[in-house]
């Protein structure tokens, strides 16, 4: 029901506004007696004694027609790539091809059990192997661990490889160095694996301060975690020098591959001295973000770290493939650090990513990187003089353009610009990240946007930036046209309501 009226509110009986439809919770519209599934038989009586579940559970059901409508109505309250540009820096929200979805649903992939006899799933192993070969070749690395379930899980995999390698050398190094501009997952991962995290400062131009890094290196440093291209949208020119310096003191180089889309097919991390790098299949290789997962984060490894890669993995054997698990690790892979997840990883994402890679081929992937970088630079240069770009003088940006809140009117912030973009029909860019820039706005258009789409977005952002610079009070209360106005996040955290209460 529509209660309090906002400035632009027009009350209707239902609370709906034409195609903007309100939708109640399943707990408000369903009943525990209703079901949308028919079975061929009545529920047989079971004799489970005291273990039988007798008390009500409280799970509402809906008929099939109501279910389809409920979720369809909910879906319309979401912004999505299918609706328009989704310029989230560091997230690479590119088009998700539908062939990927079709392939992932082929019965041989979707309806196969991970523990089937190996002779009955050779095609699944072939997919894993073929994708692995592509990832190894594209990155110029020695091998790849396919099982990590997401980017952060991949980071954990790489960091555990480093830990295992140090152990094998009989060394106990405790420190991982992480740039100030890193994703939060980097320090969290290092800490989760028992390391102490120390920050590496940045230079004025937004890159790792090589001299400061070198000064900190020593026998207690296990390694560094560098994002390249980095979260300021810049390529770390000194990457090779960083790697050499870290290797010289016996440490390892982890690269956060979140931004691999900018260099895929044009630069191989293996040529830059990287020892481990995760690849987000849901970024560079177009598997759907799904409103927050599932992701997939295979980790490419250097020869130095390869012996420690997790189980299981697929190896080619004559004409067929074999899965190396705990039982045969002893002979084939004695130094593995162990298992990270049940079964073999995100198979459904492997089929999608391989489909995407084969569609583009080596030439298409190179074009992907080039168009992604071209689009980002076009946004950066088109907004010069409108929004402050702190690193515009540091050289071309890579896949994303970084702006700050400098020059906005008193009382106006990055948040207002983000919410203003919502009214213009866009998802906001990444805001307040990286932390090295005040009121950061990180724009990543990706290669799947046309010039016309970019021109319209640039126009919208220019218009909002002018409103923020001129102190337009209406911007302070944006969004006005979204299904909801600004939500009270403080209330949500102060009095958490995390489940439906009857």
């Amino acid at each position, binding site marked *: 029901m529509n209660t309090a009226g906002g400035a632009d509110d027009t009350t209707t009986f239902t609370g709906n506004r034409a195609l903007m439809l309100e939708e109640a919770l399943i707990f408000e519209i369903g009943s525990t007696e209703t079901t949308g599934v028919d079975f061929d038989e009545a529920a047989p009586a079971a004799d489970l004694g005291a273990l039988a579940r007798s008390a009500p559970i409280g799970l509402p059901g809906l008929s099939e027609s109501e279910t389809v409508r409920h979720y369809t109505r909910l879906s319309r309250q979401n912004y999505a790539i299918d609706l328009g540009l989704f310029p989230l820096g560091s997230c690479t929200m590119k088009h998700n091809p539908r062939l990927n979805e079709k392939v992932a649903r082929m019965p041989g992939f979707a309806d196969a059990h991970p523990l089937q*006899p190996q002779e009955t799933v050779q095609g699944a192993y072939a997919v894993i192997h073929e994708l692995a070969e592509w990832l190894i070749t594209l990155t110029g690395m020695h091998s790849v661990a396919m099982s990590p379930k997401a980017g952060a*899980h991949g980071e954990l995999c790489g960091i555990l490889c480093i830990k295992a390698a140090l152990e094998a050398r009989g060394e106990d190094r405790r420190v991982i160095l992480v740039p100030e501009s890193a994703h939060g997952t980097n320090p969290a991962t*290092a800490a989760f694996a028992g390391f102490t995290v120390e920050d590496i400062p940045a230079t004025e131009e937004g890159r790792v301060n090589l001299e400061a890094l070198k000064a900190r290196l020593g026998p207690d440093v296990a390694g560094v975690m560098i994002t390249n291209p980095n979260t300021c949208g810049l390529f770390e020119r000194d990457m090779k020098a960083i790697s050499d310096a870290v290797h010289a003191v016996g440490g390892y180089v982890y690269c956060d591959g979140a931004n691999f889309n900018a260099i895929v097919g044009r630069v191989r991390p293996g040529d830059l001295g990287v020892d481990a790098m995760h690849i987000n299949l849901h970024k560079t290789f177009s598997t759907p973000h799904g409103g927050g997962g599932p992701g997939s984060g295979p980790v490419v490894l250097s020869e130095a770290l390869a012996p420690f890669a997790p189980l299981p993995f697929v190896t080619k054997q004559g004409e067929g493939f074999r899965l190396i698990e705990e039982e045969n690790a002893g002979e084939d892979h004695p130094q593995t650090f162990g298992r990270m997840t049940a079964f*073999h990883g995100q198979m459904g994402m492997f089929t999608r990513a391989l489909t995407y890679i084969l569609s583009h081929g080596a030439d298409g992937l190179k074009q992907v990187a080039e168009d992604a970088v071209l689009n980002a630079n076009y946004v950066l240069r088109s907004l010069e003089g409108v929004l402050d770009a702190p690193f515009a003088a540091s050289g071309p940006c890579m896949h994303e353009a970084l702006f700050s809140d400098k020059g906005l009117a008193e009382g106006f912030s990055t948040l207002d610009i983000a919410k203003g973009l919502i009214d213009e029909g866009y998802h*906001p860019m990444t805001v307040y990240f990286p932390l090295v820039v005040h009121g950061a706005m990180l724009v990543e258009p990706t290669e799947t946007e046309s010039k016309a789409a970019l021109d319209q977005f640039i126009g919208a952002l220019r218009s909002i930036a002018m409103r923020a610079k001129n102190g337009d009070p209406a911007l302070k209360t944006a969004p006005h046209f979204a299904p909801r106005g600004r939500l009270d996040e403080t209330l949500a955290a102060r009095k958490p309501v995390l489940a439906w209460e009857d």
Partner: protein
Amino acid sequence: MRYLPLTSDDRAAMLATIGASSIDDLFVDVPAEARLDGPITGLPMHASELAVERHMAALSRQNRAAGDGPFFLGAGAYRHHVPASVDHLIQRGEFLTAYTPYQPEIAQGTLQMLFEFQSQVARLLGTDVANASMYDGSTACWEAIVMARRITKRAKALLSTGLHPHYRSVARTMAKYTGDVLVDADPSLEAGTDWAALADSIDEEVSCVVVQYPDILGRIDDMTKLAEACEAAGALLIAVVTEPVALGLIKSPGEMGADIVVGEGQSLGVGLQFGGPYVGLFACKTKYVRQMPGRLCGETVDANGKRGFVLTLSTREQHIRREKATSNICTNSGLCALAFSIHMTLLGEAGLRQLAAINHARAKAAATELAKIPGVSVLNTGFFNEFTLLLPTEARPVIHKLAEKGVLGGVSLGRLYPDNAGLANGLVVAVTETVTEADISAFAATLKEVLA
């Protein structure tokens, strides 16, 4: 390239706007020795949709799909029938191609779905609250052990021998590097669980006891006494559920006093998918919520007083707390959580109870039929839809012979515990609503033939 909208004219115009003479100008910061000028050699070039589809279909056909014949595999991944509307709805672009709902005004669809999912999971598992999902059951299980360490300030975890060997393997891997102490062992072929023995071995160093329900051999047991023993000693009881459909028929771990309940939600909505992506379930008592890993969705109001939902309590998470976060986990398994939630909404309580009852009845019928084969017996006294068969010979070769004859007859304990000869004759058999009477007869006849 069909996914790339820029034309060569566009590219030229844009380079002019930027003030660059060629695309290479934009890659000047890449050192020359690391710059590739042409496409990487030795790799195929771009291909048509038809060609790629043909290639992938050929690979798919090299697999035997579970639906191709009698199928009895479980052991942490279960084949249930998923209503057609589930897959249709999760492919709506607004769900499929949305990002994590960090901008709640235009992500209420995902957020309301997550709130409903959390509520369904909490009720199903019998706890107060649940998070917005984890990668899968095995990683959720490890995160629960870490959470118990944070809460109790103790580092010793007792793992039931009935815990899925992969879950145990994940925990062992992680504990090696985090300093956690695990007490674990292989199961023994007994009809009962090891829970009474676990209750007796809790001391003041124990942070948590981890049990699986139903366990890897399909056994079910009452955990009330174990929960009491944990509480008395200041330890937490963590229950792992890999087959959530069971909870339509048997008591939830939360009802029996478990502090944290984690599990694998793949049974509902997600499908087998050769092991992933799946959906980890994570639920606990309200008092521990601030120690939870992962994303949480909560209710609030907007500027006009309308109800809405947001991601909340995010000061637990890595993007805010960095190295002080409760976990390094960033994503959840949103689309799989959606599939789970839609399937659960379609079933409703009445449908879930009926589905569970059918699974149980079908499994009982199969167990009775298979136990008639000379030399074959059923280990379990109690089970839901999965039980352990004891064969007169090693189960592993039998599985391959069955597969040759078109029957996928379960998971051998030899595959799950390759180093334990004492378990080699065990075969874990799962029977869901997708199994027909004809499938059971075919399995029994073929097994008899193979063992003869």
